[in-house]
């Protein structure tokens, strides 16, 4: 095998494994995108440099 082919394959494999963070299910544009965990909220807030809104609720 040519000596250049291996690095190319290795890079492709690295790219495939490096996947993006979990993406939310399709959220309609006209609704709030709620984070599904506190850790996810912190990670996203840090990446975007935005504040976090925490809502506590109970059923009536």
């Amino acid at each position, binding site marked *: 095998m040519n000596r250049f082919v291996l*690095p190319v394959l290795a890079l492709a494999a690295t790219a495939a494994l490096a996947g*993006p963070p979990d993406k939310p299910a399709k959220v309609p544009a006209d609704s*709030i995108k709620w984070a599904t965990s*506190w850790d996810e909220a912190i990670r996203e807030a840090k990446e975007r440099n*935005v504040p*976090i809104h925490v809502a506590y609720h109970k059923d009536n």
Partner: protein
Amino acid sequence: MDSSVYANKDFIKASKRWVCVYGSKDSGHGTEKVNGAEMCKLHPQLTCDDHMKVNGEVSGKFFTGTIKMPATVWCDSDGKEVGKQQGALSSKQLIEKMAEVEKQLGPGLGSDEYWMAQDRLAAGEKAMGEAKLRDALASFNEVVKMEKLPGSKAVVDRAKAGLERTNEMVQALVANADEIRSAGDLDRAKEKYKEILAQFRGTEIGKKAEKALAEMEQAEKDKVKKGNPPKR
């Protein structure tokens, strides 16, 4: 607030400048099917398991004792509390409070732009994995174009890293073709240059491949003229 505030279009618009977290230990409101999955009837972007789990994660974090529900907490991007309120707020009150906090903390990246960037980064990685390098470059470049938006540094840095890795792969393809050509395997070298040209026509890399192909064809013609056909 579930129906009066969280469905309000002005609040939804304001929420895009935040990360929003919803905690509730209740599930009596029921579920509805969304794309085949059982989602919370009040907030179909979540499952009831999600908001019950979140409730467990945040319940003791910002309040102690009995809380007057609904309650709201505003935090900076590290999760440190910057304000809180017990009891219901109107959309207007909530938006005003959020604007105050935003003023203190400065602008960040909007959620639409952030998720668009995530989508393009994922497309870039996928294209790299499939060796569709021009598509990968295009996807990563779309994110790099967001560079001037506030709060875009993290996603832009990831896109730049993706571009760097893709460019290394492109350079390796050209080096591979050059080496095959130097070794005298002209038919295979031609195939390699043609593959590069198919992806990168009109670019600097494409021009290099085009030039190499033209040189090889000219060399073949010259040899034929001299009555000395090229070795295969």
